[in-house]
């Protein structure tokens, strides 16, 4: 029996916050536009968004299908030199034998990682995330969006594929359409019309080759996802494929760069019927075309939170706050000492807790301890504990407060004492929340965040967010 490769699971993360593009011109007198762009919260970066997307992808997946490789791709890495995929790996509590690699640098790397995973071997979790920043009033600022998506690739021998990879093609060329020097927060572009004409023949070449590779005609393709950061080329060239083009989420999320191909694929898979043929066409320093066909297993294999649901559950952030979150507007912090850098050795000793949110459960009393404890509060023997993974457990707010004095990159801190379903209590910071909406009895879920950065070290840990939708 021939094995077919394809998608075993997928998930996406669209941040809770949005910027109404009209707010840009309201403040600046120019820029902006219609619709909204997704905004990573002050406590999110590409790594934490990648973790959330990957958790969505793996939530319903049996341990038999655990990835045997993790590839993380972004244009906005939290670290260079140091691997970011290892943080995702730790948050997902993957086995040490699973390699975690960054495949980064360019927007194209993310779709390249997806192609390599679909055409390679084993079960590879491809995580793509991007945090798109443009100078105030720029087209990149309003057109960009922050998001992440994760796709678990594998073969039909691993388990039911949600979509089969039918084939594809690639076209590559060296030309200056968009570029960024390492260290810069924003990109520069050449004249728009140049890029459009440069992409034209590459789209034709890759599209023709992909159809030939799969033995399909354009009529066989039910829908095409066409994306790339050159908006004009995407629109013009996508229109001449002769295939219905899927919504690109420009009005609700914005273009999430490296994450966008996988995000749009996730959005399409959220609603596609079985047997649909979907072409993913990505314009990035050339063209990548990947063609997939959905299966009967798709309906039962979707993640719990669709892209559409995440688009729907949102709250606007003001433009000045957005600028402050991105470091484009420096605001006065509370007059308190900034936090210290976390200790590397202490962080490694407690990686299961810090990155994986694993507490301990007393095997005699059954009491869950957060953080993990070697000695229980209910008496009993030392080290009479088993690991208690709590990242996917929801909880209820027992009491809460709003702290307007404590240091935070975005005051005030909303803080709640959370009682977890099935046992375990922890006082924890809330995020993606407005103080006025917090109430005793409110339901929360855990989310992986960046608490602060000190001495160049990002302090990652978990917060709680209100359960929505």
């Amino acid at each position: 029996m021939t094995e077919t490769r394809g998608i075993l699971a997928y998930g996406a993360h669209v941040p809770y916050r949005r910027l109404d593009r009209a707010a840009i011109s309201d403040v600046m007198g120019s820029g902006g536009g219609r619709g909204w762009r997704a905004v990573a919260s002050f406590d999110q970066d590409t790594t934490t968004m990648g973790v959330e997307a990957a958790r969505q992808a793996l939530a319903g997946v049996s341990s038999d299908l655990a990835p045997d490789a993790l590839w993380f791709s972004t244009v906005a890495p939290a670290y260079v030199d140091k691997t970011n995929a290892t943080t995702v790996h730790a948050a997902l509590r993957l086995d040490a034998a699973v390699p975690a690699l960054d495949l980064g640098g360019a927007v194209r790397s993310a779709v390249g990682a997806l192609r390599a995973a679909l055409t390679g071997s084993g079960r590879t979790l491809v995580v793509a995330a991007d945090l798109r920043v443009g100078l105030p009033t720029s087209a990149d600022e309003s057109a960009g969006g922050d998001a992440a998506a994760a796709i678990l690739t594998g073969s039909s021998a691993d388990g039911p594929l949600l979509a089969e990879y039918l084939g594809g093609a690639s076209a590559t060329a060296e030309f200056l359409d968009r570029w960024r020097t390492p260290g810069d927060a924003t990109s520069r572009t050449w004249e728009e019309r140049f890029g459009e004409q440069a992409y034209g023949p590459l789209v034709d070449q890759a599209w023709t080759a992909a159809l030939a590779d799969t033995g399909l005609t354009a009529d066989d393709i039910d829908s095409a996802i066409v994306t790339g950061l050159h908006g004009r080329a995407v629109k013009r060239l996508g229109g001449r494929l002769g295939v219905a083009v899927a919504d690109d989420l420009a009005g609700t999320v914005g273009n999430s760069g490296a994450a966008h191909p996988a995000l749009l694929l996730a959005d399409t898979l959220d609603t596609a019927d079985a047997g649909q043929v979907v072409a993913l066409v990505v314009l990035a320093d050339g063209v990548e075309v990947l063609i997939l066909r959905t299966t009967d297993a798709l309906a039962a294999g979707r993640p719990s939170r669709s892209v559409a649901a995440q688009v729907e559950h949102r709250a606007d952030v003001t433009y000045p706050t957005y600028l402050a979150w991105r470091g484009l507007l420096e605001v006065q912090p509370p007059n308190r000492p900034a936090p210290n850098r976390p200790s590397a050795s202490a962080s490694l000793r407690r990686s299961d807790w810090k990155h994986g949110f694993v507490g301990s459960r007393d095997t005699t009393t059954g009491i869950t301890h957060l953080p993990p404890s070697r000695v229980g509060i209910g008496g009993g023997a030392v080290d009479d504990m088993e690991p208690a993974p709590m990242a996917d457990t929801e909880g209820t707010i027992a009491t809460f407060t709003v702290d307007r004095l404590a240091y935070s990159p975005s005051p005030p801190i909303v803080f709640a004492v959370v009682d977890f379903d099935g046992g375990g209590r922890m006082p924890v910071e809330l995020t993606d929340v407005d103080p006025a909406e917090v109430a005793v009895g409110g339901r929360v879920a855990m989310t992986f965040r960046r608490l602060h950065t000190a001495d160049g070290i990002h302090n990652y840990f978990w917060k709680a967010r209100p359960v929505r939708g």
Partner: protein
Amino acid sequence: MASHGIRDRVAIVGMGCTPFREHWDKSLDDLLIDAAGLTYESAGVTKDDVDAYWFGTSQSAASGIALATPLRLSGKPVTRVENYCATGSEALRQACYAVASGAYDSAMAIGAEKVKDGGYQGLNAFPIPTDGTGRTLTAAAMFSLIIPAYAERYGVDEDELRRVVARIAEKNHYNGARNPLAQFRRETSAEAICEMPAIAGRLSVFDCAGVADGAAAAIVVRAEDAHRYTDRPLYVKALALVAGDGSGLVDPDYDFTTLPECAAAATDAYAQAGITDPRAELALAEVHDCFTPTELVLMEDLGFSEPGTAWRDVLDGTFDLDGDLPVNTDGGLKSFGHPVGASGLRMHYEAWIQLRDQAPEERRVNLRGRTKALIHNLGGYPGEMLSFVGIVGTELD
């Protein structure tokens, strides 16, 4: 567990307390020299007459050398102690036990904190390297959790409870206005406090202890030697300390309406001192009013009010200067500010002058034949706390 106490075996024979201020012109050394000098004078001794020293400071210095050097103590055992915000009381506890053991004839407990050199408002924790997962909340926010929890448990309207805790601040500022050692000496009304903006939960700045520099000290000797130093010694009736196991932050049964470590320390202290009805037997109490809700629940945890009724007692004036059991007659942390190492000894200083009829006329407690005072000093937060409760009295039992 055995807790036998040392009732009537040790006496305080001299005390001193500096003004609590933003002492921009005084160093930690200056504060120590001033407090020690007042205390030597009070007991009629010199530094060489004191056999051993316990120095409490939380974040201003480390080791006994930080006391021995400014005072130029030569050849003396000097120990630095630290136990969060109960550091000052802990220094006294250690000194008392050393004398009670017979190891020394006399000892000084001295506590000091130089807070105002840090450049930030508020107390600043010493940075211990960690995995970065600990809470970063302010103490104000942690104690603000009491208000909604208490309102919920006892069915008190939260706005009403907000006025109750403001009434506690009003009382303490009334007392502090009559104390020349206090930092804040202006009366403030509960109504004005309620109208201030919230900084943590429902608490305003005036629901929080201030920030000040200060120092205070005591000299203790064996009880049988006390009259060599003073006609009116203060006998140590009880010294209780409970360090919580942090279970309140782990255990879903904890509801933030009580401070169990304080209740446990009080139970131990009452047993040591032979007190069965604290509200009737105590002349006054100095308690750790770091935040106004703290004092509210302490009235219940220390056994002054039945659970769920302290808010009524506060409104009834029970703990006012002329009430049934005056609490924080010196103005408390609210009026003094909280130089961590000094506060516990500052509280004892108030018992020292009130029980010995030395308090200024305008805030002198009517003792009504009562001879004992309670001192309560805590460190930490609801759910993760340590508590000291001490009792002193002018009469041997």
